[in-house]
């Protein structure tokens, strides 16, 4: 219901810089997933938006309003804490009713709303219990109910489904997404589950060590990572990375060599490669976008490799191969089960090859001329 924007927000805890000059816009009514490794500043970012932490510098806006100095109780945000933070001395019912009682709603209306949200999250039978009598997943749903019941303008979720079993997670996820769309709540969702992030979010924000790495659609985060960090953080297994030598640097034809395999790029790619400073380039490709072949192909990057480990997962196999001093992973169909020590060519379509500047680690597609 409002657009949330951060302007050069920095947060320091003593010497630790938890957020470093973060500028972000969370669009009105959109669902944004926040991805990042542990300690990257995700929780800090949510707390700053909620008003629990004051930024060391920078401003926060809800819509056009500057809320940087507004206390949390004046912001109408819903927040599900990573550790739920339920009120231990209140029943589940009273926990959920608490924000409504603070608003002095009539008790009959409170009752209706509490039961409604409890039904949606399937915690109706738990309303009379105390938080300590609930399982982790149940506590999580109560926390979610408490955040949703007040129909906040901004919903902040810190790994709200991490403790649910796979089945419940999928169904609550769908409900949540549906509700978010129906109510049009601007939602920011922290998760470690990339599949969840990529499937639910309109926008994905990848953050590392307090800095925003990329803000984009799930498709682009996956297919066109802005830098090496995003490429290697997203995906399971993550993208393969190989260091290649630039043997030819013409704006019309640029060739790379990796483990004695040579491949030449033309057109736009060649032009960008030719502008790179050094003689090296970082190649990356996704394991599921590569194939194993017995012969090299002229229209594909064909890297000779030797099978090291094969993991059979049923629906597919993940094959780890040795390429020079590095390892790469390739996903193969179940019918193709290579044997250890066998030699293959790892075949990658040039369109699926991502190229990064080894110094800045930026994807060359994003480097401005």
């Amino acid at each position, binding site marked *: 219901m409002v657009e949330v924007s951060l302007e050069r927000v920095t947060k320091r805890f003593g010497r630790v810089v938890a957020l470093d000059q973060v500028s972000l816009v969370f669009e009105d009514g959109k669902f944004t997933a926040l991805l990042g490794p542990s300690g990257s500043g995700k929780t800090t970012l949510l707390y700053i938006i909620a008003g629990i932490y004051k930024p060391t510098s920078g401003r926060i806006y809800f819509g056009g309003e500057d809320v940087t100095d507004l206390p949390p109780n004046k912001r109408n945000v*819903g*927040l599900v*804490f990573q550790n739920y*933070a*339920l009120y*231990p*001395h209140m029943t589940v019912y009273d926990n959920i009713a608490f924000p409504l009682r*603070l608003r002095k709603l009539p008790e009959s209306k409170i009752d209706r709303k509490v039961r409604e949200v409890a039904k949606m999250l399937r915690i109706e039978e738990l309303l009379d219990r105390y938080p300590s009598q609930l399982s982790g997943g149940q506590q999580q749903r109560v926390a979610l109910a*408490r955040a949703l019941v007040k129909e906040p303008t901004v919903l902040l979720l810190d790994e709200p489904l991490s403790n649910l079993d796979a089945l419940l997670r999928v169904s609550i996820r769908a409900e949540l997404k549906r509700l978010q769309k129906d109510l049009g709540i601007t939602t920011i969702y922290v998760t470690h589950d990339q599949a969840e992030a990529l499937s639910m979010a309109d926008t994905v924000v990848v953050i590392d060590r307090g800095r925003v790495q990329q803000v984009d659609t799930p498709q682009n985060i996956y297919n066109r990572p802005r830098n090496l960090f995003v490429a290697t953080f997203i995906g399971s297994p993550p993208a393969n990375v190989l260091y290649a030598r630039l043997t030819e640097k013409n704006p019309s034809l640029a060739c790379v060599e990796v483990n004695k395999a040579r491949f030449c790029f033309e057109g736009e790619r060649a032009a960008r490669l030719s502008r790179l400073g050094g003689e090296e380039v970082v190649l990356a490709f996704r394991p599921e976008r590569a194939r194993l072949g017995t012969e090299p192909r002229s229209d594909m990057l064909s890297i000779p490799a030797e099978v090291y480990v094969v993991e059979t997962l049923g629906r597919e196999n993940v094959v780890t191969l040795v390429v020079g001093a590095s390892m790469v992973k390739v996903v193969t169909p179940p019918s193709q089960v290579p044997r250890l020590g066998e030699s293959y060519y790892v075949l990658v379509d040039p369109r699926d090859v991502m190229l990064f500047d080894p110094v800045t680690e930026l994807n060359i597609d994003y480097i401005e001329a």
Partner: protein
Amino acid sequence: MARLALRRARAEARAAERVMGDVETLRSARRAYLLAAVLGAASLPMVLLYLLLVLSSFADTIVTGPDILEARYSLDNWLMFFRGEVAPAAGRLYTTADILATIANTAIVALGVTAVVVFTSVLAGYAFSRMRFRWRRGLMTFIILLHAFPGVALIIAVYAMYVWSSMPLARSEGAMVAYAFAFTVLARASLELPMSIWLMKGFFDRIPWEVEWSALIDGASRLRAWWQIVLPQVKPGIAALAIFAFLAGWEDLIYVHVFLYIGTAGKVKTLATLIEELTANIETSYLPVVAAAGTLYLLPTILFFVLTQKLLLEAYSGGLKA
């Protein structure tokens, strides 16, 4: 009380679950009996002495052992005590004392100490636990140092303060008595404060920040979050604190003697100073009545032990039910 205990039990059960699963509840029964036997044997002499005191308060003589069977028992001592016939003068005449006033005085001191201690240590404990201000660490260390100071060692300085500060009031007796009460309560409470503040800080420390933040985000002001979310969670701590403070005030002799008894020239007595007075001339006093006074004096302590036994029991069964 029972509800408090239940809540605490739940919190504890949850903490135990997190740390050690069901190991905690599977103590061997034999070990428990052994422990009970050892503790029982060790505390037997104390329990016996208390028992003899209570028995004597109903007997026509102070019973000390085998004479338990020979003594005659009645409510006479207690009736005499409440009639104020505590100090025999000549023959069957008694100088009377106002026992109800004495009990009321004792209660005033005890409740006063409780109120001051609870109020101050709850606020200070919260501040030390949650707020970052200048000299926070220094103050906390200082408070612990204060605790290490024995109250008796302070009394000369505190007495000087008392004499000096009560000077302007000397003309009005009513003001003097009120001041003596206030001074006694404050002085005795300050002895309890260091430990209580630390205790309270510990209780507040155990509440995760997130719970308080959550209340703020739900729309509560800082004060309301404190009152409705934080405070209810430290109720067991407050209860414990209040009990200890009450007992300290009820049983205190030194401070009560110096400020209240001497300060009002013996007009305002508490149970402790009354017993002190009665036993001062032990040859003439009728000791079974003194035993009744002593029993009353010890009653809160005894009640406390009986009650917490029940509390503990309920707490544990409550924890199992949950």
